[in-house]
């Protein structure tokens, strides 16, 4: 792809781009320089660190699964149907993208908390969500869901409805069309959307802190552990931050390879 690109980018654009890249990369370099390599392994393998990492991975996987379960139908409805108030609904669904996570946490508290809208009902059945791992998963799902809906809806619109229409005229029922035609077509976008949701869930901090609390092995995820360690042991905080950065880089790389919406578009044009 790089061989065929247009090479006439003005120099000043490249120069500004370099400044932009440095702006993103330099802080990471600055953090790398502060890592205490001698104690790195003991710092990231301490009991509290491993608990936090394990909890983060488990909850992020669970919330990614929830995002796929709820997000795929949402994206299909938004992309394939037209109804009154759809635009407003789409904006509302994407709201967690721009909402400060603390606000999300407060909203979740008033919904699922002990005195919340739904929480009171749960309490009656003896189910308490507050201070449980479930609360962490809910907080992560809340902030990560828009990523999946957004990338999948875009892909659904891009691939169009031609093949689905053909399938339907050949007698396939809507569920068959969805399962055999629509989903396979947008599979790369689904994977990249799921990976992005996972990454967002992994980095979730504000909503978790506000809604779920912070207890080792139960609700204290890696970002919360970093925030707490910073109080007494900055070395441990930096070491754990590096772990989170590495996981994030891997996730972004995977998402980039799996998604490649640009490649999808090119292939369609070539046909």
């Amino acid at each position: 792809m790089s061989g065929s690109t247009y090479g006439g980018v003005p120099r000043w654009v490249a120069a500004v781009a370099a400044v932009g890249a440095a702006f993103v990369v330099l802080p990471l370099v600055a953090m790398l320089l502060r890592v205490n390599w001698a104690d790195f392994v003991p710092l990231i393998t301490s009991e509290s660190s491993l608990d936090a990492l394990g909890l983060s991975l488990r909850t992020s996987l669970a919330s990614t699964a929830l995002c796929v379960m709820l997000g795929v139908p949402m994206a299909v409805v938004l992309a394939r149907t037209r109804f009154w108030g759809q635009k407003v609904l789409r904006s509302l669904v994407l709201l967690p993208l721009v909402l400060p996570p603390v606000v999300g946490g407060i909203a979740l508290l008033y919904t699922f908390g002990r005195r919340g809208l739904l929480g009171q009902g749960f309490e009656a059945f003896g189910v308490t969500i507050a201070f449980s791992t479930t609360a962490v998963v809910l907080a992560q799902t809340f902030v990560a869901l828009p990523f999946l809906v957004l990338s999948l809806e875009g892909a659904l619109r891009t691939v169009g409805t031609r093949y689905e229409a053909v399938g339907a005229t050949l007698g396939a029922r809507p569920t068959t069309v969805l399962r055999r035609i629509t989903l396979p077509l947008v599979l790369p976008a689904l994977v990249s959307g799921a990976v992005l949701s996972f990454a967002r869930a992994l980095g979730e901090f504000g909503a978790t802190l506000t809604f779920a609390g912070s207890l080792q092995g139960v609700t204290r995820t890696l970002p919360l552990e970093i925030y707490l360690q910073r109080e007494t042991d900055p070395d441990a905080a930096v070491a754990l931050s590096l772990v989170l950065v590495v996981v994030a880089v891997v996730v972004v790389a995977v998402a980039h390879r799996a998604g490649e919406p640009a490649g999808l578009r090119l292939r369609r044009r070539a046909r």
Partner: protein
Amino acid sequence: MRRATTAVLAAATLLLLSGCAGQAAPASDVPASSAVPGSTEAALEGTVTVFAAASLKATFTELAQEFEAAHPGVTVELSFAGSSDLVTQITEGAPADVFASADEKNMAKLIDAGVVDAAAPVDFATNVLTIAVPPGNPGGVARLADLADPGIATVLCAPQVPCGAAAETLEKAAGVTIPAVSEESSVTDVLGKVTSGEADAGLVYVTDVVAAGDAVEGIDIAESAEAVNTYPIAPVAGAQNPAAARAFVELVTGSAGRDVLAAAGFGAP
């Protein structure tokens, strides 16, 4: 146009300054201030930047207003955050003239870093822990030992932060083990969990309960004297405005400061 604006502003400033001087000059004030050679009240001007622990927000905002009223030429810039955050900011070069810490440990960090003179800090207040419960006390909490019951959802600060360290000391002194449902990184988060009713109880400072008003009820802890937090204040060595910094420290440690702090629930050092 801009020059004209500047000129008008300068003139207005001059008027204000001369007006103030005119007010301060007459009557018995003059001999009084000249009789005390150390005090330079009339000469204070500029900006004094005060970095203070988050728990001092209400009291220091009030004291800053008193200070500005007493020294019309001075603007007090206040910055509130967790004490350890402020220590990091100051050692990384943030322009602070005065630092007020919620514990002695964080002040010691600045002394070790050479940013505050070892002899400079003055203790100006104390704070003790109390049990905060939601209005109506749904958990029926009466004393510290009640929090050992796992049926009562209690939120504490993590031992890494000052309020958590105090809670740990208190638990040891009282021989009580509290099975916390969450260990928060700040006392504000503990209070938030109690005011929202998520937790049945939380260990916070007496001053937090006073500040929260009707949102929570406070239950005194009989053993509270076992874990007393002492608040030191000191001018920062490289202060931009050392005279105003000293004057502000004097106000906080003086009788005016004591009154405001006592009203907020702080104890005398």
